[in-house]
C-alpha cells in the first residue's frame, strides 16, 4: 500500500531521490488557523525584503 505522494515516485526514475510531504505537512498547507499565522509571518518577511530593496 503506498501513501499519499509516495505513490507517484517512480522506482529509480528521475523523481526517486526527492522528498514528498506526509499527510500532516499537507494538511497544514490548507489548515486555516495555521495558514492565517503563516499569512502574517510571510507578509512581515516580504515587507522586510521589499524595504531592503527600495
Amino acid at each position, binding site marked *: 500500500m503506498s501513501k499519499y505522494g509516495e505513490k*507517484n515516485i517512480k522506482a529509480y526514475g*528521475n523523481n526517486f531521490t*526527492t522528498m*514528498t510531504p506526509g499527510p500532516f505537512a499537507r494538511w497544514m*498547507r*490548507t489548515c*486555516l488557523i495555521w495558514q492565517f499565522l503563516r499569512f502574517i509571518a510571510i507578509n512581515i518577511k516580504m515587507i522586510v525584503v521589499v524595504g*531592503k530593496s*527600495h
Partner: protein
Amino acid sequence: MARLVVLGGGVAGHTAATFAAKWLGSEHEVVVVTPNAKWNWIPSNIWVGVGEMSKEDVTFDLAPVYQKAGINYKQAKAVSINPEGKEGSDKPFVTVEFTGQGKVGETEEVQYDYLINATGPKLNFAATPGLGDANGLGEFTVSVCTADHAVHANEEFQKTIEKMKKGERQKFLIGTGHGMCTCQGAAFEYIFNIEHELRKAGVRDMADLQWISNESFLGDFGVGGLHMKAMGFAVSSRIFAESLFAERNVEWTIGAHVNKVEKGKAHYELLDGSMGEHEFDFAMLIPPFAGVGIKAYDKAGEDITATVFAPNGFMKVDANYAAGAYENWKASDWPRTYQNPTYKNMFAAGIAFAPPHGISKPMSSPNGTPINPTPPRTGMPSGIIGKAVAHSVCDLMTKGESAHLHEASMAEMGAACVASAGKGIFTGTAAAMTIYPVVPDFEKYPGTGRDTDYTFGEIGLAGHWIKHILHHLFIYKAKLNPGWTLIPE
C-alpha cells in the same frame, strides 16, 4: 518646459511614467508611447488561462488613467530612435507608429529631452519553428503571455476537459519552447494551475502532465536556483520543486531545447546532445524573449542600432558587458543607474535593458546548442528599476545635468515572488518566496550567493491569499487610486 518620453506602458514604464508625472507636476511634460489600449496585470493571466478569471478582471483602459495623471498618451509603438536629432535639428526624437486613437498606421516624430525605454520583451515565437504565429496564437500550442493569449489558452483547455469527461485521455506539455527562454516561473504556475483545475473537474486521472524546460535542474527559475531556510537547513529550491512535481504527479524533462513543434508533437535536444520528442494534446510553451526591435539612427541617418542596443535587441545600459566567461562574473557587472553609456539622456527599465550576462550557469549540448535560462526581470525588480530611473530623470530635469542618479542594482535588491499552484479561497496554494539579492553575490555571501536570512519560501494557502490580494492591490495602484504611492512596487 522639458519633455520625458516613456516607451512602453507595462510594469516598468507605467511605474516610471506615473511617478514622473506626479513628481514633475505641470512644470514638465510626460509622454507615454505604448501600443496597447489596456493595462494588463500579467501575473494573473495564469488564472485567465484556466478560466478562473476573465480578461476584464486583469485589464483596464489606460486612457482615463493617463488623463487623470496629466500624461500625454500616444497609443503607438516606437519604431526608431534618433538620439542626435536629424539634419537641421539637434533635438532627439522617437518615430512612433499609431495603433489606435483613430490614427492606425500613421507615424509621428515625438521629440524628447529624456527617454525611458521600457518596451519589455518581444515574444519571439519565430525562434522555434511551429511554436506560434506572429500573434503568438500558434496553430499547435497556446500561450499565456498576454491576456488575449490566455483567453485562447483557456478555450483550448476547456475542450480537453470535455474530451476527458467523454473518456479520452489527454497529454499536457507545459514549459519553455526554446533553449534560451526565461520566465520558467510562469510556466511552473500554469502547469500546477492546470493540475489543480483537472482535479476540481474530476478528470485528473485521465491526464498525463509533462513538464519541459531549459533549466539544468528543476527550481533553477533562471536565477540559478536559490537556497531557502527550512527545518534548520539551507535547502536548494531543487528539492522543493522536485517534491512538488512528484507530489502532483508531473513528469519532467529538463535541460531541453525545444527545436521544432508540429501538430501534437514537440521535438527537443537535451544537454547531453540526445534528441527526443514529446507528444501532446495540449501544449503551452513560453517563447524566448528578445528586444522589440527598435532601430537607432545618428544625425546623418546612419544605422547605429548596434551602438544603442545589444545583439538581442535590449538597450545597453551601465552594465559590464565584457565580463566574459562565467568564472569571471561578478555582482558588480549588473547595472545600477540604467543610463545608456552613449546617450546620457536615455535610460532603459524592466525587461528592456540588456543584462550583462546570465544568472544561471551557462551550458550547451555537445552539438554546441546553448541550453540555459536567460535572466528574468520579474515584476518587483521591473517596478523598482522603473521608479529609480524616473527619479533620476526627474532630478536631471529639475536640478540640472549634474544631479545624482538613483541606483537599483539587481545584485543589491531582493524580490518577493508568489507562484500560484492552484486558485481557491480555501483550497488554493501558492509558493511564496523572497530572494535576496536577485543576482547572487558570491563575494558577499560565499556559498549560496544569497543572504539566507532574507531568502525563504513555503507553499500553502497563505501564499494564495497573498497572490490574490496582490492582484487587487497592483491593479488599484496602477489605476492611481487614492494612496497609490504608498503601495510598494
